[in-house]
């Protein structure tokens, strides 16, 4: 391969060097006149992508039977209380209590009903419950940062949680991720499967973050930023955000049966 050899965790570059690379890619994108809606998978400022992206074009496939369906999840799989990440420990977790809610839609605007949504996140101090997270910030014994729910008949989901903190990572020297919540989503067919990250409005780290900036189109990356919604905030209790998620188009028109499983 003609790729330079770069250790994914070398932390060899400064933020200024990474930012200059990102600016150059943005400039080239703006000049291209092409509209992109998804992240580049080949985005060198995110160092660990260098050896982990396919270099050949995706191969076109017409979906066949199994791909036209998605796994079904139900009450057996997910308890309603799993949507509240603030009640999983023996006491209240520390941080800003918040709710995020919205709808999961397919590319045709149809609600994705009774389907699994999974989230995971750092705690208020920017620390994950993960053995490889070495950030010296406190673990919160009352917060795991893991939640699940099933969407409603209108595609709606809602999680109650604690606002995650930003955290450092080893992409380059003094690299910090903007605060985010990871989301995992299924549609009505398997080709709609996706994992993404939800961000918070006005984060000063957006311009510095190569994972966020790998979505080179400014309008496209704003689709990952939730909206502060005062009507979702609760009096003397929590702050509210709304965020709708659009999957790619379904290849099979969902029927009423899809909601009965």
């Amino acid at each position, binding site marked *: 391969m003609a790729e330079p050899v770069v250790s994914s965790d070398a932390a060899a570059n400064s933020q200024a060097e990474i930012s200059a690379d990102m600016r150059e890619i943005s400039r080239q994108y703006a000049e291209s006149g092409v509209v992109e809606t*998804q992240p580049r998978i080949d985005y060198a400022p995110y160092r660990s992508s260098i050896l982990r*992206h396919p270099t050949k074009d995706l191969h076109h496939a017409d979906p066949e*039977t*199994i791909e036209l369906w998605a796994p079904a999840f139900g009450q*057996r799989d997910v308890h309603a209380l799993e949507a509240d990440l603030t009640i999983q420990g023996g006491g209240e977790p520390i941080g800003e209590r918040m709710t995020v809610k919205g709808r999961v839609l397919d*590319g045709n605007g149809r609600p994705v009903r009774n389907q699994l949504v999974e989230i995971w996140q750092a705690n208020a101090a920017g620390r994950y419950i993960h053995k490889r997270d070495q950030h010296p910030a406190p673990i919160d014994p009352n917060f795991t940062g893991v939640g699940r729910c099933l969407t409603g008949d209108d595609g709606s989901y809602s999680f109650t949680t604690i606002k995650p903190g930003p955290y450092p990572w080893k992409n380059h020297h003094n690299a910090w991720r903007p605060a985010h919540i990871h989301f995992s989503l299924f549609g009505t067919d398997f080709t709609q499967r996706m994992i993404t990250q939800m961000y918070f409005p006005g984060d000063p780290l957006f311009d510095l973050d190569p994972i966020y900036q790998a979505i080179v189109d400014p309008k496209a990356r704003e689709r990952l930023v939730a909206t502060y919604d005062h009507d979702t905030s609760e009096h003397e209790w929590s702050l509210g955000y709304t965020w709708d998620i*659009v999957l790619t*188009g379904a*290849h099979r028109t969902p029927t009423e049966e899809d909601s009965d499983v």
Partner: protein
Amino acid sequence: MSEQLVPTPGQTIGPFYGFALPYAGGENLVDRTHPNAVRLHGTVYDGHGDPVPDSMLEIWQADAEGNVSQEPGSLIRDGYTFTGFGRVAVDNVGHYDFTTVNPGASEPGKAPFIAMTVFARGLLNRLFTRIYLPEDTQALANDPVLSALPEDRRSTLIAAREADGSLRFDIRLQGDGETVFLSYPNHRADS
């Protein structure tokens, strides 16, 4: 019919999914003691040929008769119901194991395959691929996806049957023997 919406961008699964997404029994679509249990295993490699230790894989498949399950219970298995879905995190040397059954052809004459989604730290968006069973050579030759590929690329989608009946399927994200990854009609050109 209705309005066309622009899909939300994907993002990498990152490094810290291990405490959240994998779950007990996720890799066992059937119990190992099932009379038709088949081991499906392999390793995920990067562009240097080094194993990728922080990848998560999902499979979705028909049962042995080619039927698509719409039964819930993939996350909390009852040990009897075939739900068709499995999820596993690779181990420290990039290796994964599923226990499943050989999928039947879901339409007569079609080559049976298992649909797979690949996630990894460093991989900015999910990748889709197919794991074809190697036996029905006539059906493989007629398969529209496989027959549109040159021979050396086609073989990356066909599992090897090992002496003990296991299926071996390695995933090469980049470089020599790079796995064929798929896009579908309703994906945008860049997704």
